[in-house]
């Protein structure tokens, strides 16, 4: 509960009790005058003074009351002290102003109501306390506590009197008065919540918990036992001596039980603390063990940038012993040129709390004890230890990785150069290898033409063979060039209709092949993502291939479609032609490998290698199934995610 609320509620209660009594006197209502009808009544002057004290508490409770309110509160408190002091004076016969009968004199005189001596004393104590409430200083603090505790205890005595039924006709003070004083004392104590009893009660410490638990019991147990004793004695169960003995014994038992119970709870709290400490030590031990065996350097620093921990890997990597660098600036581990930036960064972080490096992994340069520098990768974390901010960094020597990256870059450059050279080579092959072939063919023809009469049939056949060979080689060179061009040309990716391409290819093939002899089945609407030019080359080769090897069939049928094969979506080209032996299937897609003798089916053996290259450039896969004499099926995919099988 908020202390200000307690203070305000207590002050309001005191004012309400006082006002109630005044109304009671005015309208002659017993309940309001005495709380318990027939018992001693609250004097009207007491009621007035209680209201004044309540107002003073209201005005001074709370931390941000303006100075005029405080001065008014102090004036009201002085009035309360004055009233109490004057009435107290009359008891010592100093002076007897008619204070008691100042209000409602007839009614007051009729019952002999007066401002009780205990009430007068309490007004002095409470008034003084209220006057001091907003002053500072150790003495003020001690005086406040003393005054308020004094007031509280005297009030308690009066309350007990009421509880035990003592004759209070001329007694210390009325029940409602006592309650009002108790409220004032409590409210005033809570007006300064950070000191004394209230601070202890509210404190989040084991002592606070103990006070909260014990204080009500210590107060209530004797009160209740005393009351029971009075009840018993009044009922004639025992005499005063017996009652005393019983009271003492029961009090001892109750308080001893309380003490034992408190001891137990302290014991439990202690056990919990020990457990927590053990767990902390365990976690600390785990961290140390982890840090000690880690391959990476682990270094902690405090918010001044001084090293507080340096693990064995850090010793190995940086060349310093832990004892050499602990308590030294973390900048010891970095090249001089980075030190200012580091200090600025640390200051900025501590000022703004905005991390730049914390929580991320960055590449930096470290400096070893021997002064040599090396690349490090740093991940930095921050943690709080009380008010201190602690930084722990994990540092990895990435010299090897950097070297590997450099090597990789060098290889990439070499590869690029090699590719460029290959380009130049291919160009040269295209241009220069064909020259001699032209000469061989051309001059063979020249011999055949010019020296025809000197050659017999055999000679002419030899020259024909020479010319055939030259032309075949020219074909090979062209195919090789086409293949290399496929690899070098930049690739596009767009949505392509494979069905449309296949249909176009088939119509072209139909122009050169006898029409109507082949049954074509092209599945409609097959789309793919890829390079239209390359995909056309692939389909041309596959369909041409299928046509070529179906030639021996009486009823050739060639199919293009899509299916699920080997667990993936694949396109396929199927024929019912010559087929092939699966044992040699792996040779199909290698350039210049042929499964059929050149005399049977023409071709250089580059076609399928070209197809395979196109498919691979798309990230897809190609494979074939077939059987000799039963046709072949070529499957291909066009993206890597369709390849569950190696």
């Amino acid at each position, binding site marked *: 509960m908020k202390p200000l609320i307690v203070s305000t509620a207590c002050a309001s209660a005191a004012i309400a009790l006082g006002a109630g009594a005044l109304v009671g006197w005015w309208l002659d209502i017993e309940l309001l005058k005495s709380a318990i009808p027939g018992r001693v009544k609250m004097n009207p002057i007491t009621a007035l003074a209680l209201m004044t004290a309540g107002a003073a508490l209201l005005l001074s409770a709370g931390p941000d009351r303006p100075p005029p309110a405080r001065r008014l509160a102090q004036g009201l408190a002085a009035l309360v002290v004055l009233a109490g002091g004057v009435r107290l004076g009359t008891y010592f016969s100093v002076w007897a102003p008619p204070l008691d009968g100042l209000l409602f004199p007839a009614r007051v005189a009729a019952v002999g109501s007066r401002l009780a001596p205990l009430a007068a004393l309490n007004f002095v104590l409470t008034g003084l306390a209220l006057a001091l409430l907003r002053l500072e200083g150790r003495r003020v603090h001690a005086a406040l506590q003393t005054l308020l505790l004094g007031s509280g205890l005297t009030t308690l005595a009066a309350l007990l009197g009421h509880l035990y039924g003592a004759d209070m006709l001329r007694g210390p003070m009325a029940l409602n008065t006592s309650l009002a004083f108790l409220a004032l004392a409590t409210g005033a104590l809570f007006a300064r919540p950070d000191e004394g009893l209230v601070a202890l009660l509210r404190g989040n410490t084991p002592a606070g918990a103990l006070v909260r638990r014990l204080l009500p019991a210590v107060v209530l147990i004797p009160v209740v036992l005393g009351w029971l004793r009075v009840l018993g004695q009044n009922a004639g169960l025992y005499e005063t001596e017996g009652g005393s003995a019983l009271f003492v014994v029961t009090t001892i038992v109750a308080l001893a039980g309380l003490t034992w119970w408190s001891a137990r709870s302290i014991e439990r709290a202690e056990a919990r603390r020990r457990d927590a400490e053990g767990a902390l030590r365990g976690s600390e031990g785990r961290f140390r063990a982890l840090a000690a065996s880690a391959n990476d350097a682990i270094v902690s620093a405090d918010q001044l940038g001084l090293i507080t921990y340096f693990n064995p890997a850090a010793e190995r990597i940086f060349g310093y012993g832990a004892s050499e660098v602990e308590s030294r600036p973390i900048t010891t581990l970095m090249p001089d040129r980075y030190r200012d930036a580091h200090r600025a960064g640390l200051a900025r972080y501590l000022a703004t709390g905005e991390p730049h490096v914390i929580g991320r992994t960055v590449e930096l340069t470290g400096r070893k004890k021997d002064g040599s520098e090396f690349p490090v990768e740093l991940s930095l974390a921050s943690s709080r230890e009380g008010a201190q901010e602690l930084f722990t960094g994990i540092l990895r020597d990435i010299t090897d990785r950097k070297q590997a990256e450099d090597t990789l870059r060098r290889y990439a450059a070499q590869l690029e150069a090699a590719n460029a050279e290959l380009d130049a080579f291919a160009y040269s092959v295209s241009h220069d290898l064909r020259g001699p072939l032209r000469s061989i063919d*051309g001059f063979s023809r020249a011999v055949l033409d010019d020296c025809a009469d000197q050659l017999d049939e055999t000679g002419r056949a030899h020259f024909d063979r020479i010319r055939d060979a030259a032309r075949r080689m020219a074909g090979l060179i062209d195919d090789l060039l086409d293949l290399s061009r496929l690899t070098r040309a930049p690739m596009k990716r767009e949505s392509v209709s494979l069905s449309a391409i296949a249909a176009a290819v088939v119509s072209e093939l139909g122009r050169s092949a006898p029409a109507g002899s082949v049954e074509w089945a092209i599945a409609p609407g097959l789309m793919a993502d890829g390079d239209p030019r390359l995909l056309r080359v692939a389909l041309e080769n596959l369909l041409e291939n299928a046509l070529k090897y179906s030639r021996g069939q009486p009823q050739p049928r060639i199919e293009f479609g899509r299916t699920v094969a080997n667990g993936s979506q694949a396109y396929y080209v199927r024929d019912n032609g010559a087929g092939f032996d699966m044992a040699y299937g792996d040779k199909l897609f290698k350039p210049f490998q042929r499964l059929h003798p050149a005399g049977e089916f023409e071709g250089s053996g580059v076609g399928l290698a070209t197809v395979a290259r196109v498919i691979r450039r798309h990230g897809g896969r190609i494979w074939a199934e077939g059987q000799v004499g039963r046709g072949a099926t070529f499957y291909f995919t066009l993206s890597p995610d369709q390849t569950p099988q190696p």
Partner: protein
Amino acid sequence: MTDKMILLVEDNRDDEALTLRALRRNRITNEVIVVRDGAEALEYLFGTGRYEGRDMTAMPELVLLDLKLPKVDGLEVLRRLRADQGTRSLPVVILTSSTEEQDLLKGYGLGANSYIRKPVDFDQFMEAARQLGVYWLLLNQGPPKQRGP
């Protein structure tokens, strides 16, 4: 068509011989001037260097230009011909081994009139030469005769 002269720019003696043979056997009897590198081709066409003072009224009806040439390559020869007022409209047929896309693009980009790949098969080469002769020397109406530069 005897007065129409052909300039053959070719460094390979075999190719030169085969080209000449293909033309002759197609009964194309026009005079063929042979130069063996790009520099010589330019000197001939501009009447400089070795051809200083030649009769510049005699300009070829057709230039057969190889691309891969010593000293100055074919594309450079073409570029210089097209840059000059006097030779800008001279019909130039590129006759080469290369089918590189880049060479085709550059050749046409620089203003070649035609691009022919020399076939290895001499029969095809003969046919190409025949068609060349028929088209460029008989059918084609060349640009109006100009005086040399």
